[in-house]
């Protein structure tokens, strides 16, 4: 009888060795909306060893057109996203160890929620929370796979602390966009596309294919379809407070270095 993971192990760059690294791998998904939920599902199916889920909310009926972890029963029962999500993920793959935290990422808990993981997946839904996540990942030296989505478009960035631009380098204004997805809408396929791209990057990091990880910013639009990769040439670590270790969103921190 074949193994559970044989189809992905047959993919040469992944292989048995990559699968074993994945089994020992630890990922944290911050935010269990469409990005985080879809990513968590793909990571659990792929056989990541340990998955930490962080989200304060409950699924609502208007989530279900795009969010894959929750059912109508979860909405009716008012189950927290982390609880409903973990139950579903355990039903998909009992080999994955799942830890849940029903909290919002904040300055006081960010480091503790990320510590010990080999990769962080950004499933958040605001710019503000993402800048905090960015700082926490930089401080801990953990790679961050960022994705964001709105309407039928989004972008993907992998932050490798100390080795390339962070989210603040790419989005220096630190302002929230004037209109949110609640106003502009979001379609399931675009979100699933971004989540899938995001998971691929996280899996590369977990299976040890760092040299295949996205460089630059991948912009995706499905309506009409267009994929673009932007390069951040001439990255200057010293020009970015977060990259040079000056964490403005984490508490009680003196500038590093």
């Amino acid at each position, binding site marked *: 009888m074949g193994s559970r993971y044989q189809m992905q192990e047959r993919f040469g760059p992944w292989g048995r060795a990559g699968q074993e690294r994945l089994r020992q791998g630890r990922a944290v998904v911050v935010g269990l909306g469409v990005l985080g939920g879809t990513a968590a599902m793909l990571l659990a199916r792929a056989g990541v060893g340990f998955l930490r889920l962080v989200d304060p909310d409950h699924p609502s009926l208007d989530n279900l057109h795009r969010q894959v972890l929750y059912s109508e029963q979860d909405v009716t029962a008012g189950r927290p996203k982390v609880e409903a999500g973990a139950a579903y993920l355990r039903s998909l793959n009992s080999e994955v160890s799942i830890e849940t935290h029903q909290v919002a990422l904040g300055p006081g808990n960010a480091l503790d929620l990320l510590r010990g993981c080999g990769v962080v997946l950004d499933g958040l839904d605001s710019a503000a929370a993402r800048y905090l996540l960015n700082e926490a990942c930089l401080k801990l030296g953990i790679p961050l796979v960022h994705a964001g*989505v709105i309407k039928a478009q989004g972008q993907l960035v992998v932050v490798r602390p100390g080795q390339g631009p962070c989210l603040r380098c790419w989005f220096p204004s630190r302002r929230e966009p004037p209109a949110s997805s609640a106003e502009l809408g979001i379609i399931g396929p675009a979100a699933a596309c971004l989540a899938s791209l995001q998971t691929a990057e996280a899996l590369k990091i977990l299976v040890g294919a760092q040299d295949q990880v996205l460089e630059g910013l991948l912009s995706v639009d499905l309506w009409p379809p267009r994929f673009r990769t*932007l390069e951040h040439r001439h990255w200057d670590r010293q020009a970015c407070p977060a990259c040079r270790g000056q964490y403005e969103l984490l508490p009680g921190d003196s500038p590093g270095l």
Partner: protein
Amino acid sequence: MDGGGPEISVVVDGFAERLPAGMSLTALILRQQAQHKDLVAEVNGRFVHPRDYDSVLLNEGDRVELIHPAFGG
């Protein structure tokens, strides 16, 4: 078209545009219906920091990409 001065040809988000010569990146962003200035801009494959949008003047043949970051999830 705006005014009668010399024009240049610039590729914006993959589409050729005729623009007034000497147009700044800031002016282009305003021209492109951009709802807000907080975007990711690249000229000829090079990321441009927002503080430089005023001083970057577009030239014939430049390729510009403008991306509005999406922060939903």
